[in-house]
């Protein structure tokens, strides 16, 4: 067995975990499985790409377009990321206003909202193909050499950066949710939204915060995936099954659970590729999902229903 699978799994798992956190949050606060979440990743990547392409041109004009050693990208990407995050957030808040919020107000069943999210997901994907074409795109054309990081593993600086960034975001989010009034209000709404209103919590505000966190993390996850692999209109949709598997494995509503679930899925995929064959990679998330649902539906950190 080659230890390289460990680092490969952690890298893939970081993206999956960040995406799964947003999914698990929207599920526990808004109470529906949001199929558009994968497309938020893709949109986040494309929106950031657009801003960074523009900035990159600008910076190149100023003679500052060179990559930020040791990474493969220049200043354009880190500066574009906050803008990409902001626009992705606006996109999700807009979608909530015109679609999900309307259905919520009418007291629509969860299944109706899930179907609406499925339709919106297809529309968002088609729109990406229409605007950007289905040709893969890249944040950078620089090639990176994987370097030895000990224990027989290799990784590129970009890959290590994504792992560090994920760890930082997860710790920050965990602090927000467990220690701040906003986090308390989120946990209250996830347990009982109408009682939260009685306690004086503005549930609409909590819903907006949830979209903001979910969309922000989705954008970062999309950019990480775009940086390490490539940017395609289907990149988010293809991640949907691993995202759901990670969220359910971790226990719906649990942020650490979603992250750990993501890492487990990433590791399971990496080991499957190494031990069985790359063609089985896509089946891993499905198998994990089915196993969890059969053996422990509440997931690792979920509370029994």
């Amino acid at each position: 067995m080659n230890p390289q699978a460990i680092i490969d799994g952690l890298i893939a798992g970081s993206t999956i975990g960040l995406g799964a956190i947003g999914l698990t949050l929207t599920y526990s606060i808004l109470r529906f499985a949001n199929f558009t979440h994968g497309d938020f990743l893709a949109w986040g990547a494309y929106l950031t790409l657009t801003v960074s392409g523009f900035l990159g041109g600008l910076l190149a004009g100023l003679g500052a377009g060179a990559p930020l050693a040791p990474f493969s990208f220049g200043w354009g990407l880190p500066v574009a990321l906050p803008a990409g995050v902001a626009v992705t957030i606006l996109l999700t808040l807009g979608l909530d206003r015109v679609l999900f919020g309307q259905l919520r107000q009418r007291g629509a069943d969860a299944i109706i909202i899930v179907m609406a999210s499925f339709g919106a997901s297809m529309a968002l994907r088609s729109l990406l193909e229409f605007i950007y074409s289905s040709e893969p795109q890249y944040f950078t054309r620089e090639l990176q050499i994987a370097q030895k990081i000990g224990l027989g593993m290799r990784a590129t600086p970009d890959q290590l950066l994504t792992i560090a960034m994920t760890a930082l975001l997860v710790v920050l989010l965990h602090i927000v949710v467990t220690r701040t009034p906003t986090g308390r209000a989120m946990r209250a709404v996830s347990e009982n939204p109408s009682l939260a209103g009685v306690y004086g919590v503005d549930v609409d505000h909590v819903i907006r915060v949830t979209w903001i966190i979910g969309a922000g993390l989705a954008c970062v996850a999309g950019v990480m995936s775009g940086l390490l692999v490539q940017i395609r209109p289907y990149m988010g949709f293809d991640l949907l099954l691993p995202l759901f598997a990670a969220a359910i494995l971790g226990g719906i509503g649990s942020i650490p659970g979603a992250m750990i679930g993501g890492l487990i899925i990433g590791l399971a995929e990496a080991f499957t590729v190494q031990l069985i064959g790359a063609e089985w990679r896509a089946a891993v998330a499905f198998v994990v999902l089915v196993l969890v649902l059969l053996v422990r539906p509440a997931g690792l950190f979920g509370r029994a229903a």
Partner: protein
Amino acid sequence: MSALTVTGFKAGYDPDLPIVKGVSFAVDTGEAIAVLGPNGAGKSTLIKAIAGQVACLGGRVMLGGDDITGLRSHDLARRGLGFVPQTDNIFTGLTIRENLQIASELVAKPQRASRIEQMFEMFPDLKSRPSELAGALSGGQRQMLAAARALLTDPPVLMLDEPSAGLSPKLVAQVFETLRRIHASGVTLILVEQNVRAALSLASRALVLVDGELAHEGPTDDLHDGDRLGRLFLGRRAGATAG
């Protein structure tokens, strides 16, 4: 001046099928009233709708001089209308302290910590283990936490839905002793109760709700006679002659 005035109030879960069918009453500042009635009469629906938890289908609700008809729950809580639901009235997945902390967000920041401490003084049962999950509390302690949560914001008007439900007689006495203290401190109370004897011991006036309509309204002195109340519960015709 009345603390809460309800006029021609209709409410229910289906717009075509009001459960509360046009109810009017007023509660004076500092008064304690009991809302009585048989199971399914619509007592919970009435106060849930006043608290913004069920759709208002007509009529008007005034809190002091403000029209609060159709406002959302969190707005009503902010305006000083406290409500303790009949069931699921605390967050079991949050700690006791967190339950109080959420409510304390409605209080001005400098007073938050001291208000929480005051509630712990008022309900010593909660004080001994503030970091424990509220789900670990017994039935009586849960009602205490629910009351503490509602009182923390010092609401001028407090509505409680069957605070004695499911409690042993000893705990019922304890809960009502607490309510008596709350009332004595000047809070206007609206109390839905199945436990008529306990409710009448506290309230000076009672509303009897039968099938979504007010069957009787008057001082509780009249109602200590069990037969009278029984007749009222059975049908609103009896109430119509009484009222």
